[in-house]
């Protein structure tokens, strides 16, 4: 499924985002491995190049854990709705810090087996959000839930392109930092 993203883009993104990702990774590792275990049913699992784990080499999150990382959000138009909607959730940057990620890319796996590789510099540069609520309501699987990676498409014209729409994975269940 990684073939969906052209290799050239990946290489360029790696070069462009390397330093930022390293910074994020170091900041994450500085926090130390203090991740509590999920009390409810886990809705997200992060693996790969991370330092903070709570289940073997994975970091699992239930809904309250994610909410505890700090909710943020924005209002934007999307190709999927006729009107602007407000998304709320955890900033991907914040999440990466929480897990102490030190890779350059994040591969997102959706429940429908959709896989997309996202350069980590998107998180800093574009403010990518791991949305949990749409218009104040938790998103169920039948409405792109439980987690939906979204970008503030209205903020920059370049975000309103196939490249970023394809990175906007819904029904996300697993992230792998590479």
């Amino acid at each position, binding site marked *: 499924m990684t073939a969906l993203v052209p290799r050239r883009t990946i290489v360029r993104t790696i070069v462009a985002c390397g330093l930022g990702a390293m910074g994020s990774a170091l900041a994450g590792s500085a926090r130390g491995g203090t991740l509590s275990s999920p009390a409810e049913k886990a809705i997200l699992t992060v693996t790969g190049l991370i330092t903070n784990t709570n289940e073997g080499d994975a970091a699992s999150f239930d809904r309250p854990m994610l909410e505890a990382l700090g909710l943020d959000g924005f209002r934007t138009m999307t*190709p999927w*709705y006729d009107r602007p909607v407000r998304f709320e959730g955890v900033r991907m940057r914040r999440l990466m810090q929480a897990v102490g990620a030190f890779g350059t890319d994040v591969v997102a796996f959706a429940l429908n087996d959709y896989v997309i590789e996202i350069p980590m510099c998107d998180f800093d540069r574009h403010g990518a959000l791991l949305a949990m609520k749409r218009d104040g309501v938790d998103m*169920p*699987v*039948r409405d*792109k839930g439980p987690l939906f990676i979204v970008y503030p498409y209205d903020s920059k014209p370049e975000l309103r392109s*196939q490249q970023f*729409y*394809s990175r906007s994975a819904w*029904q996300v269940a697993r992230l792998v930092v590479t």
Partner: protein
Amino acid sequence: MTPALQAGRSRWVKHGLLALVLSLALAAAYTSSLIVQRQQKLREVSRYSLTWFASQATLEVSRLQGVTAAALVPGSGVNEDDVQLWLDIVTNRVQLFESGQVAEFVAASGELRAIVAAFRSTVHDGRTLMEGPASPGRLRRLLALFEALNAPMSRLAAAANTHGGVLVAKDQRQLGNLHWLFAAILGALTLCAFSLIGALLRHNHLLAQAREKVEQQNRTLEKRDSELLSQNARIFFLAHHDALTGLPNRLMFHEQLEDALAQQGQGGGVALLCLDLDRFKQVNDTLGHPAGDMLLKAVAGRLLGCVREGDVVARLGGDEFAVLQRGTGPAEHASDLARRIVETLGAPYDLGAGRAVIGASAGIAVAASAPCSADMLLRSADLALYRAKGDGRGSFCLFESSMDEQMRARRAIERDLREALVRNEFKMFYQPVFHLRDQRVSGFEALLRWRHPDRGLVSPAEFVPLAEELGLIVPVGEWALAQACADAATWPDGIRVAVNLSPVQFHSPGLVAAVQRGLQASDLPAHRLELEITESALLQNSKAVLATLHELRALGLRTALDDFGTGYSSLSYLRSFPFDKLKIDQSFVREVTHRPDCRAIVRSVLDLSRELGMTTTAEGVETEDQLGQLVRDGCTEVQGFLFDRPRPAADIRHWFAPQANWMGTAHEPVAIG
């Protein structure tokens, strides 16, 4: 090319350039907007992929069927929860068909709408089935429900793919159009650029032409300027030079003289020579004006040959020349130059029309050490010239201060003379004339005297020439005539009065009328008036003289030829002109007793007069011997100091007594006074 046409072209080129620049700006703006459009198109090309979306829907429907089928197989590890998850995923998908770009895509086609409606109702039925009470056959029914969707979903994916292809083709076509438009704009821009370059080249060419034109005009102007300058120089030269000889004229000479005098203090003296040509008028009259001009040029040439470098030779006018000598030593040097000039100019001239010999007189004035103006120096040189001419032609004279004094005295007398008549300073004196045979006074000669308030009596020899020169002699003579007539009218009958007429007076047009007035005013019978005319008055225009004499005689008066024997004394006068009397000059009478030649002359004149029927009067008889001689030779009348000197009218009354004769009066000889 005319300047107007050139200016027109230049303006056209400017407007053309402006239009080109504007076109360039417009093209650039349009190109910019095209680029924006192109970017927009490119963005649309990369928009959300419907094809992907539709194929994902097909895939998810298939995966739901797969999961459901697996859940029917015991021990497969797949349960209803997995089926529920995929049902949710498919539910999510069907909801996505209801909004956004997907909904627009679906709404465009009835078939697609039907497919999506079937999809939606199937999902709805599936969810209803799964949310209801668990029953053994529901998974199988769910599978059957969704199997019915396989064909329509494939159709949907294919339609989406087709739609995507159409869109891509449309985008590509638009991009292609944009490309051509862009290429056309670029071509136009290139054309504009070339036109701009061409227009600039043309403009530069025009500018170069205009500059060439301006330079040409400048050259013309410079030429005109220099022409004007040379014209000015020519005008200046003409204003300061004599056109005939090319010598400086009076104006320039005056300036040069002033300059020389101003610089005099810095060394060297200044000498001024004024020259006057003698007999120049004769050359003009006899050989013609062209010869006169030639002569003047030759004189100028000779003068220039006489002077040193630095000296100035000028023609002051007519036959007057002047030489300015600078840095001269003593006055002798100037005299040497004057001598040389007079000598040189005296040599004969060959004038083509004939040879001419003229003379020149020079007056010299040397600037004294005291401040001296140009005018003063010129006047001094003129005075010296005047003196030189008086001394005789072909001579020169150095100015002396006495000349100035004499001139001043002459001026003073002139001034007084002009006022003498008004101030009643003229007096008439009378000298008796004796008739020898009758032994009595036959008349008196009236003599004009001027009693000057300061100088006393002034001799007529002194003031009459001056009065003639000043043109005063006519009114003065008229007054004398009237006064003499008036005095004579008081005398006894038979006593005549003789009045002298000067040559100027004789030739004046009003003479006859004046005589008539004198006679009428005094009631003096005309026969008692005698007019004495000197020989010199007869020299000119004998016809007019004759007419005047006849007119006078027609009035009834007598005419006498005065001072006979002193001038030209042509015997033809006696024959040509009607005179009643001949007066023998005293110079002959004075010598008559001891010079035989004089006696012979006097005797012949007396004989001739007698023969011609004229009476005679001997003037200046001073001795008894002279009287005796004249009596013997048959003279008619005598006058002179032997009898009486001229006296005022009041002092001659005693002569009118009946016994009066010359023996009865004191008649000691007295010097002429």
